[in-house]
């Protein structure tokens, strides 16, 4: 028996024993309580059985694929570390509950950390959509906040004032994002890229001003924004664990969608147009249609992120339409790696967690006590300049070189 065979045999042995072991663990930890009680119990009891099954399955598929020509071998080789990260994120609420000795679905430290993760997922989703236009299609847009903010505003306002249900108003919000993307590309994409950057900036800023203005105060609440009631089943305070998985799944689906899109023939044309528009045109690919398509898709994804954000905060303020929500995904994309698949997500996590750490950190420099969190925007700007000047490839850019960087 060769080495591969031995490993496969071991893996097979574990595979046959892991499920009964997991079930036994579940039965042992529940001890007659309901599953919800166990999931919400303090500490890591739930983590034990929820984690074992997922990890074993993943480990097996990776190990099997590495040593045996399984059908998913190539797939595992390409996505190995993404799968590990994903499984880590899937277990994260329980890991947090275990680390902080609190419940994963009742108020407590783990509950609080979940909300930070949810925010990060939403920002990562926004960054993924930004990367689609900026990184892959080569369109510099300074109006991405308009998609994001409109998603939040349209959903919330329709639910609040017209009493529409979540799905209908969400669908209208997505449609608004797509239509805005279509409109912006029809008006401004006909010219050179810079016009588009400027036009989108002006456009987003006007929508921002509109939302801030007193004239619509009865509808939008002007400066203060508005709150609306979220359906009970998705209420992020009551069912945060559910919302956590909703946001995570949304991010994964968006990621997979962009991944498939860019590796599809259409996606190849995006890259061709980005790299050499004249040449792509000579080959018969008209730039306008493809760029419009990229922008509409990106608008859809960004407004979806906006909907999630509105649901998470159970409201929206004009801030979601401000330039901040264009700058953030832009910086996340550049930091993580422009035109890489993982870059925006990594950038989002990096930025959001650095911000969180700094907000609570107090530094002492001689007689001064400095809270860097108060000057976060300044730091962010400096980071921005440093990133652009010093490592334009981004964190993922150098890693992925030659592999699958489109």
């Amino acid at each position, binding site marked *: 028996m060769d080495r591969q065979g031995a490993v496969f045999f071991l893996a097979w042995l574990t595979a046959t024993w892991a499920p009964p072991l997991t079930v036994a663990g579940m039965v042992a930890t529940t001890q007659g309580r309901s599953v919800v009680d166990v999931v919400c119990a303090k500490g890591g009891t739930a983590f034990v059985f929820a984690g074992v099954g997922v990890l074993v399955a993943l480990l097996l598929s990776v190990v099997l694929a590495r040593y045996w020509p399984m059908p998913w071998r190539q797939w595992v080789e390409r996505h190995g570390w993404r799968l590990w990260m994903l499984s880590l994120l899937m277990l994260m609420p329980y890991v947090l509950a275990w680390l902080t000795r609190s419940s994963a679905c009742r108020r407590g430290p783990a509950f609080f950390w979940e909300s930070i993760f949810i925010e990060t997922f939403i920002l990562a989703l926004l960054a993924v959509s930004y990367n689609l236009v900026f990184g892959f299609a*080569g369109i*510099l847009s*300074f109006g991405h906040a308009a998609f994001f903010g409109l998603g939040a505003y349209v959903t919330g306002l329709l639910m609040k004032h017209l009493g529409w249900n979540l799905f209908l108003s969400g669908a209208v919000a997505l449609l608004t994002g797509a239509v805005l993307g279509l409109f912006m590309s029809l*008006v*401004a994409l*006909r*010219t*050179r*890229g*810079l*016009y588009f*950057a*400027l*036009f989108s*900036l*002006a*456009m987003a*800023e*006007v929508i921002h*001003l*509109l939302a801030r*203005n*007193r*004239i619509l105060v009865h509808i939008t609440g002007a400066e203060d924004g508005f709150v609306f009631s979220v359906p009970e089943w998705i209420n992020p305070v009551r069912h945060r664990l559910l919302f956590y998985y909703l946001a995570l799944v949304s991010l994964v689906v968006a990621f997979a969608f962009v991944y498939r899109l860019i590796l599809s023939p259409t996606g190849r044309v995006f890259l061709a147009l980005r790299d050499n528009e004249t040449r792509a045109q000579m080959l018969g690919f008209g730039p306008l249609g493809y760029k419009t398509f990229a922008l509409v898709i990106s608008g859809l994804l960004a407004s979806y992120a906006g909907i999630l954000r509105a649901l998470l905060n159970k409201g929206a303020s004009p801030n979601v339409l401000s330039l901040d929500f264009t*700058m953030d995904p*832009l*910086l996340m994309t*550049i930091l993580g790696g422009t035109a890489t698949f993982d870059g925006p997500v990594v950038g989002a996590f990096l930025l959001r967690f650095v911000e969180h750490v700094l907000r609570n950190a107090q530094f002492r420099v001689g007689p001064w006590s400095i809270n860097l969190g108060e*000057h976060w*925007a*300044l730091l*962010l*700007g*400096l980071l*921005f*300049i440093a990133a*652009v*000047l010093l490592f*334009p490839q981004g964190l993922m850019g150098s890693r992925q070189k030659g592999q699958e960087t489109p």
Partner: protein
Amino acid sequence: MTQGHPASPHRRAVLAASLFLVGVVVLNVFLFPPAQVGVILLSGLYQAMLFFLVASGLAIIFGLLDVLNLAQGAFFMLGAYVGFGVYRLLGEGLALGVRFAAALLAALLIGGLLGALVERWLIRPLYVRPLFQIVLTLGLAMVLREAVRTLYGPAGLIPIQPPAPLRTTLTVLGAQFETYRVFIIGMGGGLMLATWLLLRRTRLGMVIRAGVEDREMVEALGIPVGRVFTLAFALGSGLAALGGIIAAPYIGAYPEMGDVFLLNAIIVVVLGGMGSFEGTMMASLLVGLTRATAEQISLEYLDTPLLASVSILLIMILVLLVRPSGLFGSEP
């Protein structure tokens, strides 16, 4: 970017813009009593001049270097703060006029110096990656705004006093109008003329215009293009900073003051055709007058100045649809 005689390709654009300006004036005459019309037109001109000071830098820098300097708004804000600083530093002993003039000069010089430094150390390494230049200037704007907020606090400064003769009011067609705003109009007009003369009638301006047309050729003729670029960048940021201190006695100084002006300057530059100085002159008049009129209309009928920002955006969309390269831009 080959153009024939400068006047010929744009005759229709000039005609359309002039017609539009006349239309705005006529609309004013119909809608409002003459006393108000005077105020509206003057206020439109005053806005136009401030927009021009920010936008001219955008246009010069873009035309020459192909860089969109989105930090222009931050330079505008910085000019106001530098001017305030110098004004306070000089103390009560000196005459108000001297202090004010020194503040103007300091804003121009420091703005220009800073612009030169930015071009030399931040923009120059990025000429190979044009998209990242824009991104960088946006980051720079953020840094400058936040640095000012950290140093001076978010509240802003109380406006300084201009010299006595500028604090009076004028009577225009029976309506009161601050002399200071007339001063802004005069100052802006003077600078507009000076910059135009600099670009059209001096050797430096000739080199700059030649650089816009064909950079390699100018370089081949033995002219240090890099130094000219730095100078042009300094000129642009200096003008924006000067605009900031000129506006400051009227609107005060606060960290976000540049943002609104940047936005309007962007609209001006897009309307005028990017990189065209004459287009910027024309478009800033257009935007200023339209804004003032729309402001007045929405104050009378809507009770909020919302229409002002929306109207110019609509004009921009319209121009982009009909003539994507702007009024004076060369066709792509």
